[in-house]
Each structure stands twice: as C-alpha cells, then as structure tokens.
C-alpha cells in the first residue's frame, strides 16, 4: 500500500526539508498535491479531493516517527488470561 507515494516522499525529502520543514504534505501517486501547516488541514483537503481513496500524508522531518507499542511488540496483551468474563459500570 502507498509504495509509489512513499518512494516519491523519500526521493524528494531532502529538497522538501529545505522548502517545507515541519509542514504536512499530501502525496497521491507521484504528485505533491499540497503543503499544509497542520495534519487536520491536510486531511480535510485530501478528503475533499480524494474522498475515501488512500493517499500519503506525512510531516516533513528528518527523523521518522518514533513508535513504541510494547504491549504489541512483546505480545503482552492479556498474556496471562484467566478466562474471566466482565461487564462495565459507568457513572457520568
């Protein structure tokens, strides 16, 4: 998914780091569709143009996103199940 867009981003990143540092870009196929100050603005513009089609939205920055998901990485989600059933009680 998004192979063309990701390759285009990597190819142009060094130029864009000079031109649009910290901005959010929309890329569709091999086209830079737009440059925005916020992710919300980029999403809104992309949805207006592409509906529910896929496209790449990335912030122009040197370092890629630092994602840490230890529960998934280490397989710890409910690692010690006891077959309990549950219900929730909420009070607003």
């Amino acid at each position, binding site marked *: *998914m*998004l192979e063309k867009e*990701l390759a285009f981003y990597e190819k142009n990143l060094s130029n864009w780091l000079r031109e649009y540092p910290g901005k959010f870009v929309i890329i569709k196929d091999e086209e830079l569709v737009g440059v925005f100050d916020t*992710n*919300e603005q980029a*999403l*809104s513009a*992309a*949805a*207006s143009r*592409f*509906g*529910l*089609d*896929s*496209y*790449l*939205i*990335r912030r122009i920055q040197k370092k890629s*996103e*630092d*994602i*840490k*998901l*230890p*529960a*998934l*990485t*280490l*397989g710890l*989600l*409910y690692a010690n*199940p*006891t*077959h*309990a*059933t*549950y*219900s*929730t*009680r*909420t*009070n*607003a």
Partner: protein
Amino acid sequence: MPILHTQLTAQGQTPDGSAIHLPSTIALIQRGPIVQVTIGVEQNIAQQLLLQGIPLPQPVPGIALIDTGATSTCIDEAIAQKLKLPVVDVVSIASASHADSKQNVYPALIEVVGIAIKFNALRAIGVPLANQGIHVLIGRDLLQICTLFYNGMIGSFTLSI
C-alpha cells in the same frame, strides 16, 4: 468537562468449574482500563464526505484499552477496512510474531459510548487486535489531552477530557 468513571466487575472459575464473583480490583488487573467505544470516520474527512453527499459508514462498536505504554493509538485493521477508512501512511512496527512489519495508518474517530468523550485520531495504526478481545489501543498521542486517574485500590479508573 465530561468525566467517565468505570469500575469493572468480573466472574472467575474455581478449580471445580463453578463461577465466582471476582472483586473489582482483580477485574481491573485482568482486563485493564477498558471502555466501550465506537470507531468511525475521522471528523475532518466526515465533514468533506457529507459536503459531497457521500453517506458515512455506520460506526463500529468495540472495546478500547487505555494503554499508557503506547506512543500511538491503534485500531483493529479489520474494522478500519470494514469502514473503508483511507490509508494515509504506512509505518514499520515490531510485533510479537514479526521483527518488523508494515502497518497501515488510518484517521479515525473514537467515541466513548454513553458520554461526550471523543478522540479524533489523525494517525491510528491498523493492527490485528480483535482476536484479543479489544478493538482499540488508546495511546499517549490521544491521552495527551486527558486526565486519567487509575485507582487500583478499589479497582476503578476515571477518564476526563
């Protein structure tokens, strides 16, 4: 300011198989801080679709685990696909079964059921979660706008936004 206060209850089994009621403290240990949510189309996208007369898919109900260990929010990949959410990025993450796997990133709206707490998740990572009984991991990217009080002493937690 909406405030969600939750106290879990649970049933366990004795060695002979009969059901017993477990205290809330144990339930919270077993299940963690979970909330009932719906997952739907992100607000900015929904607004644009409505302007174009495109009907929005119905939000999908699920269970969210508040995961203070996660930098990023995750949603169940199958739900994202069912809702036809647009893929807006692909990221690499390590999982228990794969050293480095490529996962889609989706914008999504996560609403807590029964209270006016909604998270407009601009970059939720799609991962297979449903087989573990949950559908969303609420990470620190969304918790940055929340107050979370975890009271292990009485098996409850409080979330406000």
